[in-house]
């Protein structure tokens, strides 16, 4: 089983680039999460086949937890059930810095404040366009580590 799905994204590990791994979400990353669209998620299930998919939201719960929006998952969901550890790549739009998050899927939520707020975000953007998007569930994930893989710059 491939335990390092980020390799599939072709991004060098922080170990080599010399940037520090952190075990919690920093205020800078939190800002990036607020405005992230879209984010890339790489999972790996049985047979060592990685899957890269695009998701709409990674919702900040606290420094140790985030929630992933489950709208149209297919292979990603199958992979997560086999292997809950996965990688997300987040682009911060102001500086264009890139963050890598190693996450572990813990539980699925279809109600409660986290689910509701994520659902409201989706509805707020889709209803004026008369698109009927819905949120299937919120996937609560634990933050294993985060690292900034590209610093970005102030233009």
């Amino acid at each position, binding site marked *: 089983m491939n335990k390092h799905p980020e390799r599939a994204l072709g991004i060098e590990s922080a170990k080599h680039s010399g940037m520090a791994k952190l075990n919690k979400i920093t205020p800078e990353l939190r800002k990036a999460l607020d*405005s992230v669209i879209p984010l890339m998620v790489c999972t790996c299930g049985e047979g060592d086949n990685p899957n890269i998919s695009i998701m*709409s939201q990674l919702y900040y719960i606290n420094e140790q937890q985030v929630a992933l929006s489950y709208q149209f998952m297919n292979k990603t969901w199958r992979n997560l059930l086999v292997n809950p550890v996965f990688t997300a790549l987040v682009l911060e739009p*102001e500086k264009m810095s890139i963050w890598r998050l190693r996450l572990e899927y813990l539980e699925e939520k279809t109600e409660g404040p986290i689910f509701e707020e994520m659902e409201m975000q989706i*509805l*707020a953007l889709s209803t004026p*366009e008369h698109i009927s998007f819905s949120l299937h569930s919120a996937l609560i994930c634990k933050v294993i580590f985060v690292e900034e893989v590209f610093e970005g710059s102030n233009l």
Partner: protein
Amino acid sequence: MELLDDSLNLAKELEQEKRKNDIIRRISFELGHLSSLKEKLDNILLMLEERFGLKHSMLLLPDADQQSLKVFASRGFEAQGLGAEVKMGEGVIGVVALRKRKLRLANISRQRQYVQSSAGIEAEAMGYALPGLSQAQSQVAIPLLANDELVAVLSAESEDVNFFDREDEEFLMTLSQLLAISIQNAIILEQLEQKVKERTAALEAKKLELEQLNASKDRLFSIIGHDLRSPAASLQNATELILYYQEKGDTQQLSQLGCRISRAAHTINTMLDNLLNWSITQTGDLRLQAELLPVATLFEEVLDIYQEMAVSKNIQISSCCPPGLYLLADPNAALIILRNLLSNSVKFTPAGGKISLKAQAQGSQTQIDICDNGIGMEPEKLHQLFQLKERKSSRGTAKEKGIGLGMVLVREFMRLSQGSIDVKSLPQQGTSIRLLFPTS
């Protein structure tokens, strides 16, 4: 070193808290003022800009049926957009109103692009006309709740991608209840003022009605005190004269007195009749029993009463009624109406005049025309014919007296009989009255 950092951070946080407290204190003070809803809303947006840096903001209030929200105040947009509507559950504000939960969006244009492209639709102009920044990148919308009831939605926008942070959002939430209660108070105040206006108007109307009733009552007293006195005095005078002529043994004068007594008694009788009927209609105790009445019989009955008087005034009364013609009314009401109208015709037609009584079917109704070629009425007189007023009554052509109550009664009974009355009159030419009675 770390200690220094910590204490610096602490000092910074303390400074921020102080600033927030200051804002809350100032806003609570300002919101304490009583003002109209519009003033209050504008004031809130002004304060949020001055104290909190919200440059582009608006307040929307839900409709009574909670189906949509309307912009009641806005600040810092190109178009103020007052009155613009958004459906409950639509867009950022609609969703916030429906869920009664705050929402903060950053990087809106890219998020919208993403939603559009993932749904496979072309980007187009927004489907609703709320005021807004054309290049809005961040938006925060806060439901203002009082007792879990949605009072308003506060929305603020910015062209910066990530203008509002969680702290701003939290602080606005802290303010939200204060704002909600203040707005609710203004709404209640406005409703109260509206209620007071309505009640005042109702009281004014009631006062006018009472004044009219009071005038009617005064008129009644004056009728009893003055108008009824003269025929009664005339009767009393006649009885004295009876004694006088009896002593003198003048039988010719005695027999002439009989006519005078009869006239005075008749006048008193009619007046008392009308007074009684009118008071019954006014107290609401009147119970009319409508039935189909043969018009010919009604004509006979009233003619019987006035024939003698007409002859003595040398007035010719003709009547014409097709056989088998009926009208639907209470028998007493119908007689009161016809009696009063015929009495007026006799009263206001000079010697040698003519009165005609005509009945005919008119569709589903029965039409009765009472016409005379008497002295008629000036338009001014015609205008107040149905009003109960002091000194309205006119003397007849033979100085007959009245109390000005007859026509009031006629109209009241026509109304109660679901009929209508139309009066046409020209001075020195005569008066025509047309009655329409139902037949079923």
